[in-house]
């Protein structure tokens, strides 16, 4: 067996194992010097990115991948002596999982490159990079796992490392306060999810998502299932920052270093993935998907509108962007919610699937341009030393590249044509309009308000007389921003690349819970 075969066979496990090994070795390697440790961290992140791309390829070519930890062979889901229950921890990689794993590892790699320069000279960097790798592990694990308890464990890894990273720059205690808030909110949320998991386990005697979905379909949807579903859906909506539960978002995103804000934004999109996975795969067959879909749509509408209006009141650049990411989460909830509301009806094939594709494409686009905007905000704070918009001005004179990158991100988030935000927003408007015209009108208005808000930031930060005598940011930060800008332009001009290989498989995978269950519990290739 060659190395290549070996990697292909074990790709789902390696996607977790490699960054985990990297995280554990980083504190030891850091003793040999910062440069060695950075090379190590970046090569681990690059290899993880490669594995995520490989998973996308494998899923597109061979269908859903199943990996059983400790199984002999590694595809044996139900051992002969287990009475038909999948007792081992299983990674199930379908289109949506591979998509989320890809965006998680990409933002990890970009944040790793960015922090080479942005965190230079700060203390406890071995811990910083170890936590960064652990955050990647948490996101990838949430995306790839097919086991509901394992999902909780990765959710906790995600929350704990994110909270520790938020507090990395203590900032006179303010960052620690934000991290405390974030950690308490995520922990109580994770405990509620654990409660729901215990309810589901008590009812169905299984922790495997496919097994739970199948048994729930056989026995019917009970009252206890409704409680479990409410706990899971509300908690994951809170973790992804949807509006009635969005109060932790501006603090957490606002106080973290720039690259960590971008990573936490993607971490909350991993929670969004969890929400979609639970709604479609676990509860999709049994629950009333129509009302569940409308619940997501209403959450999405509220998030879009309140997020953008709150953003107008902010004069701190990071908090402003944090409210915008609440607003962008609304678009994804709206798109996928329309898909969920029409699931199983004839309307699904008319426009529901298209709305889902729009929502999922928006996740990818949001990762790119929102990540870029957080990185530019980090670059501004790196040079100017303040995050207050009223104290900035004239930065375009001296930080030309940062200004260009900011403009690309701002135009993309507002949905201006040559950039990628336009494509996904247009898809959402077109499809959502057919369910209810009001939804599309709100989405379009929010898009205009977003443009106004970001132009305001551009004006106050980059235009005007030269207030600060600063240099351009170091190269590694520019490279990180350049990578994201490149993909923004690429997916804006050629959206078909992302649509064919990433978004369409993800939407089809979510819309097909029966295929997921049959692939895991027997049958299929």
């Amino acid at each position: 067996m060659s190395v290549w075969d070996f990697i292909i066979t074990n790709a789902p496990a390696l996607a977790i194992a490699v960054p985990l090994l990297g995280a554990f070795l980083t504190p030891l390697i850091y003793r040999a010097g910062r440069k060695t440790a950075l090379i190590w961290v970046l090569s681990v992140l690059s290899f993880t990115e490669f594995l995520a791309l490989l998973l996308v390829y494998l899923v597109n070519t061979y269908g859903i991948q199943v990996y059983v930890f400790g199984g002999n062979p590694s595809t044996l889901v139900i051992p002969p002596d287990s009475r038909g229950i999948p007792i081992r921890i299983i990674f199930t990689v379908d289109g949506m999982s591979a998509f989320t794993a890809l965006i998680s590892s990409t933002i990890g790699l970009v944040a790793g490159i960015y922090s080479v320069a942005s965190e230079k000279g700060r203390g406890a960097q071995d811990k910083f990079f170890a936590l960064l790798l652990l955050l990647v592990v948490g996101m990838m694990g949430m995306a790839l796992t097919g086991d509901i308890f394992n999902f909780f464990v990765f959710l906790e890894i995600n929350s704990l490392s994110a909270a520790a990273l938020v507090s990395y720059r203590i900032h006179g205690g303010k960052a620690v306060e934000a991290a405390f808030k974030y950690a308490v909110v995520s922990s109580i949320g994770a405990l509620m999810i654990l409660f729901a998991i215990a309810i589901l386990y008590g009812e169905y005697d299984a922790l495997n998502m496919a097994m739970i979905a199948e048994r729930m379909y056989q026995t019917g949807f009970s009252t206890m299932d409704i409680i479990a579903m409410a706990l899971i859906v509300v908690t994951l909506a809170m973790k992804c920052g949807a509006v009635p539960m969005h109060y932790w978002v501006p603090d957490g995103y606002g106080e973290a270093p720039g690259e960590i804000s971008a990573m936490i934004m993607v971490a909350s999109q991993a929670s969004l993935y969890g929400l979609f996975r639970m709604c479609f795969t676990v509860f999709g067959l049994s629950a009333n998907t129509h009302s569940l879909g409308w619940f997501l749509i209403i959450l999405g509408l509220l998030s879009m509108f309140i997020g953008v209006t709150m953003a107008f009141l902010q004069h701190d650049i990071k908090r402003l962007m944090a409210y915008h990411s609440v607003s962008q989460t609304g678009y994804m909830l709206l798109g996928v919610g329309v898909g969920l509301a029409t699931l199983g009806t004839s309307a699904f094939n008319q426009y529901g699937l298209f709305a889902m594709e729009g929502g999922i494409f928006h996740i990818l686009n949001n990762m790119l341009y929102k990540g870029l905007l957080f990185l530019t905000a980090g670059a501004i704070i790196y040079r100017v030393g303040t995050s207050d918009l009223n104290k900035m001005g004239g930065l375009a004179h001296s930080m030309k590249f940062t200004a260009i990158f900011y403009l690309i991100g701002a135009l993309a988030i507002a949905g201006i044509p040559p950039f990628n935000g336009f494509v996904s927003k247009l898809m959402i408007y077109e499809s959502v309009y057919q369910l209810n015209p009001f939804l599309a009108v709100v989405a379009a208005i929010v898009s205009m308000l977003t443009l106004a808000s970001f132009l305001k930031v551009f004006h106050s930060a980059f235009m005007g007389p030269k207030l600060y005598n600063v240099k351009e940011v170091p190269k590694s930060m520019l490279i990180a921003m350049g990578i994201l800008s490149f993909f923004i332009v690429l997916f804006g001009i050629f959206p078909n690349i992302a649509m064919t290989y990433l978004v369409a498989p993800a939407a089809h995978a979510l819309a097909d819970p029966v295929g997921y269950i049959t692939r895991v519990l027997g049958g299929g290739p």
Partner: protein
Amino acid sequence: MMSKIVRTQANFLYPFILIFGFYIVAHGHLTPGGGFQGGAVIATGIALVIVAYGYDRIKSWIKKSTLTATESIGLLCFILTAFIGIGTSFFYNFLANSGLLFGDRVSYGVNPGYLNTAGTLPIMNLAVGIEVLGGLGAILMYMMSYGKEVDK
């Protein structure tokens, strides 16, 4: 620093706590317990000497960097044990029933329990034990050192 009575008691109890902790770690696959519980017991031993002697004296005996390195090494042993089985699958128990270390076959039904069974589980318990004693010890030491700075 506490009184002489407390310090003598701590001196007396410390080795027993360590041995009890390692007993729990080593018998993790046979009895209730395992790596985390045993490691936590050992960390209580560290807590005991910190309380008895005070942080200022302890910090020259137990280095924080040693504890964090212990933690990393424990985690590393765990993940490497998982990696060795990757020829079959990640976390595959390649030692069980192999006749090698910890490789004896478990007899069916009620039995007094044999230490030389369960394959990679005892190794992973040991790794987790090392990790937890390092991790909890480091948490205690760091919290004590921050507490000292706050007091000033």
